[in-house]
């Protein structure tokens, strides 16, 4: 038997996985893993994307500490994160409302789910129009109630909240579907037993249902946190970071610094991206840690 064939026969189960993995690993390393390290590298340089790179060590990071726009973005990221989490109880509430078996309920469920399927660009356009100061629905309603109208997206005080509300719309739909699936799997015997023990309403929800919904809650937290920190599309479409940079978040500010008419400061942009990455790494590690425990558990 030729030796190569023998090597293959004897080590089949050791070599085969790497053959199956190799195309995926090559593509994934080239486009995802390697660029992370390249970005960290670029953040140590002064670079306009075309000309000579100049090594400046941590100067980009120390500039960040002096940069008011950076702190505005960071503060907005925190606002996004906190308010986005409201999608979880809201989604649970909608799921509880829809968890029935009346006629046509399936169509209701899919229509409630609708906003998640639509592109955030379209969601952004829909809400820009909803907020429009002269004819938007919001101001039509406010005027109808005799209240003063608000130009939500042109007002530094409201703009971030206005964009977050637009983002919550699909995010609530996402959490709702997670909880609807979770509620489907709740053990009916436990509910009956709890009913016999006279548990109702909130007590039932809190002590019997929610503990069983833990996996759904966990996924809801993960996707909501990541969604909040990734927010970019809505800001780009609805406000372009304005007015006067009041609605920027790190993801958007990075793009602005590296790519827009404000200049091509690749190094500085990369430094902002590294900060955002470091923040997200906390959540990524927590998620992987939980997955690791689950994997070891089975």
């Amino acid at each position, binding site marked *: 038997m030729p030796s190569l064939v023998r090597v293959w026969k004897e080590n*089949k189960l050791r070599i085969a996985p790497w053959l199956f993995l190799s195309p995926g690993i090559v593509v994934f390393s080239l486009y995802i893993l390697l660029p992370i390290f390249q970005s960290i590298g670029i953040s140590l340089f002064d670079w306009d994307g075309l000309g000579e790179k100049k090594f400046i060590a941590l100067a980009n990071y120390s500039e960040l500490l002096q940069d008011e726009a950076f702190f505005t973005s960071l503060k907005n990221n925190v606002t996004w994160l906190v308010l986005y989490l409201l999608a979880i109880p809201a989604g649970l509430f909608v799921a509880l*409302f829809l968890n029935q078996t009346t006629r046509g309920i399936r169509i209701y469920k899919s229509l409630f789910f609708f906003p998640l399927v639509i592109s955030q660009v379209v969601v952004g356009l829909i809400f820009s129009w909803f907020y429009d100061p002269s004819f938007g*629905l919001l101001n039509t309603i406010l005027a109808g109630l005799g209240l003063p109208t608000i130009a939500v997206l042109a007002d530094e005080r409201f703009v971030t909240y206005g964009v977050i509300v637009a983002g919550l719309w699909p995010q609530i739909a996402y959490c709702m579907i997670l909880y609807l699936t979770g509620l489907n799997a709740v053990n009916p015997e436990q509910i009956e037993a709890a009913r016999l023990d006279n548990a109702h309403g909130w007590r039932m929800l809190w002590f019997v249902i929610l503990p069983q919904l833990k996996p759904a809650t966990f*996924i809801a937290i993960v996707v909501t946190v990541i969604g909040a920190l990734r927010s970019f599309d809505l800001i780009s479409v609805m406000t372009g970071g304005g007015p006067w940079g009041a609605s920027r978040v790190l993801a958007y500010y990075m793009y602005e610094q590296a790519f827009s008419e404000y200049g091509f400061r690749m190094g500085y942009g990369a430094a902002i991206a590294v900060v955002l990455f470091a923040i997200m790494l906390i959540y990524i590690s927590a998620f992987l840690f939980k997955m690791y425990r689950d994997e070891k558990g089975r």
Partner: protein
Amino acid sequence: MFPTPVQQTSRPTRIAYQIALPVALVLWLLPLIGVALTSIRPAADITAGNYWGWPSSFNLIENYSAVFTNSPLAAYILNSFKVTIPTVIGAIALSSLTGFALAIYKFRSNLLIFFLFVAGNFIPFQILMVPVRDLSIQMGVYNSVWALIFFHIAFQTGFCTLFMRNFIRTLPFELIEAARIEDVSEFKIFWHIVLPLMRPALAALAVLVFTFVWNDYFWATVLTQGAHAQPVTAGLHALNGEWIAAWHLVSAGSIVAALPPVLMFFLMQKHFIAGLTLGAVKS
């Protein structure tokens, strides 16, 4: 079942629920209903400020054909398909291989590689932006649909691997052991035994990846410019800049852009939800 099924409650509760359902739905979709209504209004209604009243005439065909004839929207949509379809095929092909490898074989770095794929899903796009743009320029694909296809395949492979690996793990392992005893080659095990059983996972991923990639906006703006390569999300943003105050056209364009993933969702709802809620239920 929780909450208590309305069928078991009093008559007034039942009636209240039946009324609350459509009311809640209309409120929930109100922004969307407004847009749909605007997309069939004549331009005269827009200038007259008639946004929420009855349309003075129904311009469904006029507005939607105007969107296609007076703008490159059709080209943008074609680009979206050109990006989305190869990405779906590529990401599913790569991830069925990686998912199979990680689910079936035991080797030391298995979990580490799996976690790298999983972690890749959650990173912010911005940390990839500058190097991926440079890479695309070096490969000569910058500002073409290929720049988007390559990147999306790589990125979606992470999510798809997570999904495939967990799905294959639920299949009976005895099948594979039996095949090995029969001396069936590893690739044939993948191709003839596992792949046919993966159909539900393939369908779920196809709809999900289609929707994710169709709705991508960030990479569309980073890697492409202009109507020859940009997909409809970026195109819509550009058109919105041109159609200032032509809200009937913006609305019609938005609806057209949203339609393919919406149709996909309604046709394959079960698979779509199975994919999105992966892990939301303890198995």
